[in-house]
């Protein structure tokens, strides 16, 4: 029963990792941009939610109604004003620019909020749980996180395959040059994609901040979890990203069960094993 519990909790935390990964996967899929600052944006969104909550007294989940549009707008502006200028045939410039953004964000957060770790308080949501089996209790928060991840990925999947915006994303990803002579403006399409990615970042940031303490420097490790989930699942496959998150979460849980020091290591080992066996991930969609 103890092991079942470990696996269940691992699956649920996988939902959080899928939230980290979905936004990363989305912009890589549309514009082949690897956003090194993705984790820092997640942490930035957590601080933004904190500020909103301090100013308005809203519940952390209610703060999403403000944080999501704000992050979406920031994403749109950063893409149009900065990232579009460095995107091209060479993948190095955007990599360096987002690496720089990562450093800038960390230091801005440090200057603005100090190095103290913070947490968002979601009240009863954090402590209540559901006994599904004897010895297996599922917390409301992890369950809600997982459900949010599934709903979000289903929503993104729908958007990608059943809407005009999704069609524009896929066409631009397939052949940006020809998409332009169809009348699509690549720069705008990329800006919408980044905006969408940052909306997901906002949700990931708030769930992260309710679950655990956060500080200005924890972005890069979230980025790693996101990356690993994306790669395990296979590039460009959103459902694969969820699978990747779950595998990572379960591996970490099992590692921690064996020895608490092995939690992170087990996740990385699972990642490396999958990379060795299936270098393109489990369900790749991008060649």
């Amino acid at each position, binding site marked *: 029963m103890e092991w079942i519990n470990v696996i269940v909790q691992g699956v649920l935390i996988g939902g959080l990792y899928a939230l980290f990964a979905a936004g990363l996967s989305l912009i890589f899929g549309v514009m082949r941009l690897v956003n090194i600052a993705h984790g820092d944006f997640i942490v930035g969104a957590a601080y933004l939610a904190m500020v909103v909550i301090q100013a308005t007294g809203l519940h952390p989940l209610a703060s999403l109604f403000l944080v999501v549009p704000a992050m979406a707008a920031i994403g749109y502006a950063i893409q149009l004003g900065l990232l579009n200028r460095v995107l091209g045939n060479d993948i190095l410039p955007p990599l360096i620019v987002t690496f720089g953004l990562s450093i800038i964000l960390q230091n801005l957060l440090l200057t603005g909020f100090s190095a103290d770790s913070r947490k968002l308080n979601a009240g009863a949501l954090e402590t209540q749980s559901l006994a599904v089996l004897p010895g297996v209790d599922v917390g409301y928060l992890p369950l809600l996180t997982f459900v949010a991840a599934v709903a979000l990925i289903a929503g993104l999947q729908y958007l990608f395959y059943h809407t005009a915006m999704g*069609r*524009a994303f*896929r*066409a631009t*990803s*397939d*052949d940006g*040059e*020809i*998409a*332009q*002579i*169809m*009348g*699509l*403006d690549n720069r705008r399409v990329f800006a919408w994609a980044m905006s969408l990615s940052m909306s997901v970042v906002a949700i990931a940031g708030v769930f992260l901040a309710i679950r655990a303490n956060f500080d200005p420097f924890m972005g890069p490790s979230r980025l790693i979890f996101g990356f690993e989930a994306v790669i395990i699942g296979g590039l460009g496959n959103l459902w694969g990203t969820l699978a990747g998150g779950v595998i990572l979460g379960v591996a970490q849980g099992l590692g921690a069960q064996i020895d608490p020091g092995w939690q992170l290591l087990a996740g990385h080992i699972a990642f490396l094993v999958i990379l060795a066996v299936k270098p393109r991930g489990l369900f790749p969609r991008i060649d």
Partner: protein
Amino acid sequence: MADTVLDVADLEVFYGNAQAIHGVSLTIEKGELLSLIGSNGAGKSTLFKAICGMVKPRAGAIRLKGQNTARLSPARITEMGVAMVPEGRRLFRSLSVEENLVLGGYVGRPGPWTLRKVYDVFPILHERRRYPATALSGGQQQMVAIGRALMSNPDLLLLDELSLGLAPVVIKDIYALLPRILGEGLSTILVEQDVTRAMAVSDHFVCMLEGKISLSGRSDAFTHDQISAAYFGT
């Protein structure tokens, strides 16, 4: 001049330091079919790219219905009425046949071409509308590429190597449909490797050689030898 759709004047296009087009000028009237012939590397595709806005000319003018488009974005030029069937078709591989066609109509220009009309001309595409575009045969893919271009209801249609990689019988079918496609007062520039065919279907022609125009005129006004000399530069 009121009916001139496209007027290219003294166009110079460079790729880095390499000059691909040297002072090319041509005009095309409403409803005209112009064949653009020339060997590989003569600058035909570059000229198309310049007209679509995919490459920016260093000098000269490209006037579409009197308006200079040389500095406009590809998207803006499409909105103004230029559509291209690119060499190698370049369909969107993650989009279905129907999605490719619908995206072709993204700019929403009014005109005779609708999804229904494209399916009327190419019934097989209606049958295969849910298939991924690249799962179709080469000839059917070419139909998708033509339909996608028509969906924007262009005034000027650029057809780049329609017959590339297709079986002769399929090429014949596509050319048989051409009058129906172009019957709407559409001006067309056709790039075609098969010079005899290109001359047979067109009103006028332009022959390019090493980025310059080596011969141009009415398609029936020159002998095979004259065209051959212009084509090969002999």
